[in-house]
């Protein structure tokens, strides 16, 4: 995969006779930071799964790095996914196991290496450099389960980056975190984007803290793109009010953008 561009055209996903995703056209350029917002059940996670080929679209074309996913066989699709760094929601990983922080971060090398090939010294150099970059070096031998929610999220981001991906997908990285940690995680993602210029696709429920770097916000509602543009264009749009049932106002404060609800 040469780059992290994503293209979808006329994509529909149906489940139990209901259309849960209906995207006429979506094009994300390599290196872009896209903030994906929408209410519960809007289709945000489904869209992420479609982009990485985990959910097959009923109709339409999905391209990742310029490659049509439908043209790939099972093994080729798996190989293409090696370029995706994925930070899941907390329900999707087993935080009770006594893996150390370094072990969890080293899991990022699993798909970067061929099947059955062990993780070697050069892999651990990459692991340690990301532990260092994200300020986790002093926690490396601590268990993942002993970390706070914010530190766990940071570890999962380090795990995803260790994979050296072309696309970083984050599924609600700020969920269940206090404002302080949400702020830290957002800053980490923004810094990573600036340093590595990888494509970032971030699903977010949080309207109270927005990524400064997100050149683009996409509002999904009932599986469709209702608005696509800059932060202010989307959050202050009629479409956003229609989706959430509230009016919103974007405020600038010390270089960050925050969204306030203005009531119905």
């Amino acid at each position, binding site marked *: 995969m040469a780059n992290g561009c994503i293209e979808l055209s006329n994509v529909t996903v149906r489940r139990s006779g209901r259309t849960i995703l209906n995207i006429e056209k979506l094009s994300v350029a390599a290196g872009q930071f896209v903030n994906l917002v929408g209410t519960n059940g809007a289709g945000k996670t489904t869209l992420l799964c479609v982009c990485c080929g985990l959910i097959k679209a009923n109709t339409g074309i999905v391209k990742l790095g310029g490659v049509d996913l439908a043209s790939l066989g099972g093994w080729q699709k798996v190989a293409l996914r*090696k370029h995706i760094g994925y930070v899941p929601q907390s329900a999707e990983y087993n935080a009770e196991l006594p893996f150390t922080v370094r072990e969890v971060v080293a*899991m990022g090398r699993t798909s970067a290496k061929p099947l059955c090939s062990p993780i070697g010294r050069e892999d651990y150099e990459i692991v340690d450099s990301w532990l260092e970059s994200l300020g986790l070096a002093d926690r490396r031998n601590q*268990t993942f389960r002993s970390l706070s929610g914010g530190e766990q999220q940071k570890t999962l981001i380090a795990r995803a980056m260790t994979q050296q991906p072309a696309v970083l997908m984050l599924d609600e990285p700020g969920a269940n975190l206090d404002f302080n940690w949400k702020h830290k995680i957002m800053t980490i993602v923004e810094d990573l984007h600036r340093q590595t210029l990888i494509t970032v696709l971030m699903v977010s429920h949080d309207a109270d803290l927005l990524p400064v770097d997100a050149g683009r916000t996409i509002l999904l509602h009932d599986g469709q793109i209702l608005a696509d543009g800059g932060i202010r264009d989307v959050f202050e749009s009629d479409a956003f009010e229609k989706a959430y049932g509230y009016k919103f106002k974007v405020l600038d404060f010390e270089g960050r953008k925050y969204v306030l609800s203005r009531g119905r």
Partner: protein
Amino acid sequence: MDPFFYLVIVAGAIGGASTGLLGVYIVGMRIPFIGTCISHAAMAGTIFASLVGLNPTAGAVAASVLTSISLAANRPHKSRLDTNVGLAILFSLMLGLTFLGMGLIQDSRSEILGLLWGSILFVQRDSVVLIALMGILLVIFTVVFNKELKLLMFSRSIAAATGMHEGLVYCVFLVVCGLILAVNLKVIGGLMIFSLITNPAAAAYQVCRGHKSVVITSTLLGALSAVVGFLFSFYLGLPTGACIVIVSTMAFGIAALYRRLSGSAD
């Protein structure tokens, strides 16, 4: 002690170590009931193989592997069927088939029921060689697929989304489970396998930090539970299977207490 009992101790140690090691992954993947499910599949396989005049061990292996593959074929995110619910459904089918077979076989019901608790005291040298070979296979498998198994335990979603052959590795793992459990069934027994899979691994997860220490602790605890349980039963004249199960449960209890009192592992 009669030198014959040395063979029993060796069989117990190898079986306990194998199930202790396997348990690390089974408990880590939160599918402990796979022990009971596959044991009953093996029992059903043994019965039906006997009914049609085939080798009972081959029947046990075939039924266990088929059950493992059926379980691997279930993709929870697509089928909306949780792995443990799938296990419960397969278990009920295997239980039904076991009792159906027992109804048909008539004469040697006690032998079949013996599979539930195993017959470690009547172990043959051939059986010990077989479970030792399977134990070696398991060690090789866990070493070769070490990084993949760790990610599978941690998150199947991450494994699938980031380009690991998650379905393939999971299927191979379940087949290896089926093989290990099928060959250990006659010696250790279906109910004891369940305890030796769950308790040593659960104990190790309580007190260990890092995957390697969990693997070593659980394997040793599995072997120790089997050996200490046998020695208790030998010197106190108590049922062997029951002693092994109780010792392994006590090992978990001590580990849980230790963690609580010392706050270790983290």
